[in-house]
């Protein structure tokens, strides 16, 4: 209850804070970069569909695309949290490699192809990922070393240790339970790996957008000092966020083992950059305080769809890099312009929103 009772209120003073929710919701939605980047994705899909027809617009094609981004989607959930705190985690690819090596070793040591063995491996992978994440988070939050440096260091260390553990040779003994899970299992018609990724994405989205944990993640990225002033334990929260990113790398390791049936020691050197690009394309701001899991998923689909589309219409796959790089820079440019406009107090001109307005 408020202690203030308005004295002698003029009638015109009560124009409080009551904008029709539909309007403000639409406006908020239209202001989200993830929404117009979804438009870009749909345009790309439309273009390829026109060019290649059913060959592109087939279930099998999209099934393949979703297979290809499943691991990155899981990593992207952790990365979205990290970047919203205005941090960065360059170590995810290496942590994935390290965790998959640890998991593979644990599973090889216990021997067998059962889910029991696989379960041990899953636990080992996630525990290893969390350990790396806690280490990253501790160095960022407590030792105050810039996240870029901390995670560049752990990128190098985790990969180095994975190579030490294996002599640089991939471990190819993965329990059949895992590989079969990838090859044969479908859940509600969705292949297993994308399904797992979807579950992780949905949970990640709920945590980010609907819980205190998510709210504090935004608050810290938006105004770390302000967050401290209201009594949020910023250090602990940062450690948890990096631990989450590590855990996702651990889970990603399991999915990668299931997908490829082997560790991928030499295969993850660009994973971090690809995931970061997707997160940023999806509207999560590298300045912190802003972003969404939904945007990250859209940001992952754009390169994957481009790649699949180029293959189908017979354009050399090299063009994918050119296209993705262009989208990345354009996305950040638009994001910055919007920000500048918002700071000037003007509501940012927004094509989507304008469309909705004129329709009304």
């Amino acid at each position: 209850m408020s202690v203030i009772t308005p004295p002698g209120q003029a009638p015109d003073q009560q124009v409080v804070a009551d904008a029709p929710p539909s309007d403000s919701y639409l406006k908020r939605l239209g202001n989200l970069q993830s929404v117009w980047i979804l438009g870009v994705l749909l345009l790309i899909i439309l273009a390829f569909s026109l060019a290649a027809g059913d060959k592109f617009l087939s279930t099998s094609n999209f099934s393949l695309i979703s297979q290809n981004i499943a691991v990155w989607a899981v990593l992207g959930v952790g990365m979205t949290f990290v970047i919203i705190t205005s941090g960065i985690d360059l170590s995810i690819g290496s942590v994935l490699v390290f965790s998959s090596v640890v998991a593979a070793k644990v599973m090889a040591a216990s021997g067998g192809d059962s889910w029991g063995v696989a379960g041990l491996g899953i636990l080992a992978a996630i525990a290893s990922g969390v350990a790396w994440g806690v280490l990253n988070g501790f160095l960022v939050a407590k030792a105050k070393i810039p996240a870029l440096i901390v995670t560049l260091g752990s990128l190098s260390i985790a990969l180095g240790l994975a190579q030490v553990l294996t002599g640089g040779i991939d471990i190819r003994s993965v329990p059949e339970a895992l590989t079969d899970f990838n090859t044969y299992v479908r859940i509600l018609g969705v292949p297993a790996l994308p399904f797992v990724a979807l579950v992780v994405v949905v949970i990640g989205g709920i945590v980010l957008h609907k819980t205190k944990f998510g709210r504090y993640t935004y608050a810290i990225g938006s105004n770390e000092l302000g967050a401290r002033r209201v009594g949020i334990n910023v250090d602990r929260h940062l450690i948890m966020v990096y631990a989450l990113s590590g855990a996702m790398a651990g889970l990603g390791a399991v999915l990668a083992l299931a997908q490829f049936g082997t560790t991928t020691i030499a295969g993850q050197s660009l994973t971090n950059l690809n995931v970061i690009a997707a997160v940023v394309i999806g509207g999560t701001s590298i300045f912190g305080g802003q972003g969404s899991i939904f945007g990250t998923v859209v940001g992952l689909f754009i390169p994957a769809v481009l790649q699949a589309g180029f293959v189908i219409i017979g354009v050399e796959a090299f063009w994918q890099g050119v296209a993705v790089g262009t989208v990345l820079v354009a996305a950040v440019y638009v994001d910055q312009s919007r920000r500048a406009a918002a700071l000037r107090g003007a509501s940012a001109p927004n094509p989507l929103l304008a469309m909705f307005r004129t329709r009304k």
Partner: protein
Amino acid sequence: MAVRPLLEVRGVDKSFGAVQVLRDVAMNVFPGEVTALVGDNGAGKSTLVKCISGIYPIDAGQVVFDGRPVTVSSPKDAAALGIEVVYQDLALCDNLDIVSNMFLGREKRSGIALDEATMEQMAHRTLASLSVRSVSLRQPAASLSGGERQTIAIAKAVLWNSRVVILDEPTAALGVAQTAQVLELVRRLADNGLGVVLISHNMNDVFAVSDRITALYLGRTAAQVRTSEVTHSQVVELITVGYTGSIGLLPDPGSYEGMGGRS
């Protein structure tokens, strides 16, 4: 009638390393009154506020709240007592909307999920009671004007039923109209029985709304006086040299440095 202070600061010392910023500082804040905390730049006003609100630990002295000595070791402790601080560098999160900012750190939940509907309702009621105009509850703090930001920060105090509100230079960056609005809010907080501390450099503001004045001079309390008992120029003297007439930190007779300030 003799009213007990709601908040008493007694003999507080605070050093940062070798630099002693606060020395034996005293301040009393009474319910239903605006206490202006004045002092030159660097006098230690903001530091005193941060000591009260648990951001900095104090080296010596006591904070007494409602007659009880209290230890405030974090902003959460201060909030739990009912002390709300509006910081000089407005600590709103630009990317969060008004509701989220007002509840930051004290969110309402249902289960594990945030209870947005309840928070929105409570924020709405609070802002309505302050007759705050022209803001949408879901607009991000970044889009607010300076005056609106101050208002939202002050509204937090109302929302949380605070008993003491401390405002660190709330009008420093505001235009004339917005300043008047904020001062009017400050006055209303006090009229509703809260103890209000207003830090300000502006003598007009101080004399417009305050009941008492506490002057800091180089980290020491120069004087605690009733606003009605002093003039503008006396307060300016307290701020600039630490004393005026027989009030204040009278210069050590042995030192001519102190005397030199008077003409």
